[in-house]
């Protein structure tokens, strides 16, 4: 790889007030990832470039950015697989406000997680035995299928409903809500169902499955949201029929 032509990289530079692309020429290396490219730029071309990363091995999700218009973990994106004519475009994640350069403000992502009641609430104590739940039970299987989310916000960046509807809770928050609704130890099912059935909740999803296309952990928030839709409408219809006729 050394000795082959350098790649032309456009990187978005700026802050909350705006910005533009800056171009850098980066030497190609074998097994180079986009995170390697961004790191090279900061160390050799422009020390003022701001970006986020932590584990650099595809476990933490901190390095998520838009690469040629697609949200990816940059540490797990090989330049060879995504460059177009030796060119790359790197931008901060879509749908989130920018702090500086490639660093976005994740606050609204976590606010929506809370608004979706994405926290477990049990009533057990250390005096009780561990809950005996078989991993083969349908509810546990549903919870396990959705549980590996590491809050990287790639699905949030990919989702067009998020970009069109500022109130929409988004795929990650709703996916977590679904995994908790399937947790038989949790005692907050009713208030969580209220939260995800409200305006901006699961009913706003248009099943585009952009979230599922790009989730690096191969989760499918659309499937989770479909499950929430059934819970929400089912609960509404049951309440309607349970109401006494006047």
């Amino acid at each position, binding site marked *: 790889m050394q000795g082959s032509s350098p790649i032309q990289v456009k990187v978005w530079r700026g802050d909350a007030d705006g910005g533009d692309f800056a171009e850098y020429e980066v030497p190609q290396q074998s097994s180079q990832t986009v995170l390697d490219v961004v790191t090279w730029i900061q160390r050799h071309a422009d020390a003022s470039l701001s970006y986020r990363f932590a584990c650099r091995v595809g476990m933490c999700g901190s390095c998520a950015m838009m690469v040629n218009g697609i949200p990816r973990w940059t540490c797990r994106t090989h330049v060879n697989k995504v460059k177009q004519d030796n060119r790359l475009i790197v931008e901060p994640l*879509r749908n989130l406000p920018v702090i500086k350069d490639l660093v976005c403000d994740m606050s609204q992502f976590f606010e929506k997680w809370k608004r979706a009641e994405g926290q477990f609430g049990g009533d057990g104590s250390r005096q009780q035995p561990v809950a005996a739940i078989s991993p083969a039970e349908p509810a546990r299987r549903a919870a396990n299928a959705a549980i590996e989310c590491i809050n990287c916000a790639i699905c949030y960046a990919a989702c*067009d409903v998020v970009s069109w509807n500022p109130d929409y809770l988004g795929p990650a928050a709703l996916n977590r809500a679904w995994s908790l609704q399937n947790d038989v130890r949790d005692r907050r099912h009713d208030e969580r169902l209220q939260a995800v059935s409200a305006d901006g909740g699961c009913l706003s999803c248009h*099943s*585009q*499955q*952009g979230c599922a*296309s*790009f989730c690096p952990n191969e989760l499918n928030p659309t499937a989770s949201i479909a*499950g929430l839709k059934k819970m929400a409408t089912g609960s509404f219809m049951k309440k309607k029929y349970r109401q006494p006729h006047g």
Partner: protein
Amino acid sequence: MKAHRRQPLYLAFLLHRLSGLGLALFLPLHFYILGTALAGAEAFDAALGWTEGPLIKVAEFGLVFLLAVHFFGGLRLLALENLPWSNRHKNYAAVAVAVAFFVACGFLLRAV
């Protein structure tokens, strides 16, 4: 089209939304033409006469396709939202387009 949208189920969404919009905008015209029958069969025939040209037949083919694709796509969505989850929605979306096209061709062949 933005890179992250170039995937089959976004296109399916777009087709569903645009076909619905097309039908919603067409309906007032449709209801207007039918409404001419209030003035009698001759008035209705005169209005139907506007729909005879070959370009109109192509437009009607398009409208039948829009209705059929919105219908079959809609069935796919009702299944997605009410039946157990399936990972085959890309396939179902493709089948919906294919069957809708087939239905619209059936219409066109009888229209010419």
